[in-house]
């Protein structure tokens, strides 16, 4: 039947807790991303200041945002899998 999902998704007891964790991590990342945008808007000259190993803030912050997204993804998956294993087993 066309209106049904391609596959049936089982009940997820951990959905609420996973959603809460997702919102917390989203807010944390948004604050850090907003910091990057705010520096660009208000004090763009700060972006050119060299920090570690001759790299400027623009590079460190930019690369940092990309790497942080990957790390936070792994953390999120670790805790979600743990919650699913605990709650869906019960």
């Amino acid at each position: 039947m066309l209106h049904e999902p391609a596959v049936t998704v089982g009940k997820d007891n951990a959905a609420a807790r996973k959603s809460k964790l997702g919102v917390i991590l989203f807010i944390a990342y948004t604050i850090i991303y907003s910091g990057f945008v705010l520096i660009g808007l208000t004090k763009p000259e700060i972006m050119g200041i060299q920090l570690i190993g001759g790299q400027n803030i623009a590079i460190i912050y930019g690369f940092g945002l990309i790497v942080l997204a990957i790390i936070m993804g792994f953390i999120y998956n670790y805790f979600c899998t743990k919650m699913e294993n605990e709650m869906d087993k019960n």
Partner: protein
Amino acid sequence: MIYEVSNLAIIIFLSIVGLVLGLSFYFARKTKSAAGYYAAGGNIHWGVNGVAFAGDYLSAASFLGICGMIAYSGYDGFLYSIGYLAGWVVALFLVAEPMKRLGKYTFTDALDAKFDSKSIKLTAAISTLIVSIFYLIPQMVGAGDLVVPLLGLPHWMGVVIVGSIVILIVATAGMTSTTYVQFIKGALLVVFSTILTIYILNNGLTLTPNENYHKFISTEAVVTNDTIVGVSDPSFLVITTKVVDNMVFVKLEKEGASCWYKLNKTESKATLEEMLYTSETEDGTKLYNGAPKSDGKFYQVGHLNKIIVDGKEVEQTGPVGPFEFLTTIENSEIVRFSKKVFKDGEEKVTVWYQNVTKGVDVMKPGLLYKLSKAAGATIWDKLNFLSLMLALFLGTSALPHILIRYYTVSSQRAARKSTIVAIAVIGFFYILTLYMGLGAMISGVLDVESSNMSGPLLAKSIGIGLFSIISAIAFATVLGTVSGLIVASSGAIAHDFIDKYLQIPMTDKAKVNAGKFSAIGVGIFAICLGILFKGMNVSFLVGLAFAVAASANLPAILFLLFWKKTTAKGIAYSIVVGIVSSIGIILFSPTMYEKYGLIAKNAPIPLDNPGIISIPLSVITLIVVSLLTQKHNATKDFDR
């Protein structure tokens, strides 16, 4: 000649196209049901789906557009990489699992799961179509750009070829073949971009990009009472002088051949510096540096003016590490080529003058987006920047062709895991874009007429083999993304509109056929748009698609998931307001004014990126309308 056709390039290109079509015909035999056509049966492994996500997402905008933007505007192009990747955080933490839980085949299904509202079905289907078409335009433009050097065909032929192949892919096997095309292309793109980056680092930085690099002439001008009366080299004759935006351009003639120079004046002397230029007469004749294009007088450009290592000037660095590469560019000086257009009598003249730029300015925002007071930034410049970063962050998780990929996996856990694989692959690729873009900027490979070709031309400077492979992958990149977009669009027409909104009774087979015919229609429409929008930077165009998606779709998705008072009417109205306001602002923006042949400064809305206005408008509409229609809310069906 910047572009020459090679047999190897044609063989590699045809092999990739053959592989893609072979896959499609193979899967076509297995695709008999609607579930198979729209969602690949929901049985794709999360690892494959994750790489396919990357293949879907890393479109022509990412490889061609971002590399090109970085090559011309430095760090400002990298802002797109950061924003595009950050958008996946919204997808992973807020959208991925609920979308999988609520949806069936399309984004509209998920949005309508709670309400069963006709107004949501209609507006979400229209929104899917509009966003997908906005996203399709740059892919088709990029395809056209690619076939010019790869196969020696005109731009429009490239657009037609891509359109035809994609129609075949989608019309044969729908989401299954699309998934594997995207998987293969995503993997190949990352592998060969890594190879290209390793080559750039291994080559290091040098003042002479290659032995054939053009040495630009510089000659002293004789100035009397602020007027150029001659040139120190008597073989030059001064023909005419033009002042454009406080810059003086001078047309000189030597031995019957003319060329445009730029006047650079200091207190002690005035020099004239050779430029690249094209001149176009009213009958359409176009000359490149005063000669037909085939004469090869229009050079590839982009070089370093000074290389500073440990405070000393050097001619070359030798192999460098990834961080050393960035620091050396930051401490050095780069010659970029900036564009000006003016009229000389009946001729339209476009010049590209040498613009010596400090590495510190290249390696931070500001060359494209004016942000500091020193650069003359206005409030609108800052709003443009804020608007772009907002749209990129919020747009990803609202793109219908990305969202439908959640229905190709078996569970919420698989949806989450495939998103994480996608973030890792895409994040790694976006870091590489900085190296590929900067590498192109300083390697004397740029074709000033096509920023989109910076990446492939960098590969060409290494060898025709790598160029052929990279171009063929870039072409496959377009195929993969366009396939996803056409699946999403055909789903919007056949599944959301014809089947669910109009409720026309159809058998399962008829539904698949409706999807296929819709795919053909959208494909033909995309071909026409690709030809019409030739010459625009593909990343800029994709930025606009993100803005429309973030304005029309994201408020609806997030409020549906996180605000219990959301009503069907609230969602439908917010989608309409998001679409109308974002497209309205785009149509009256400076860039579009330029496209219409009008003066950009006269545009009534001085914003190129609409998100900063259209996203809040859409959110406010959703809240207000939902609050006003509370009595119809909860499980009640408003529209039936």
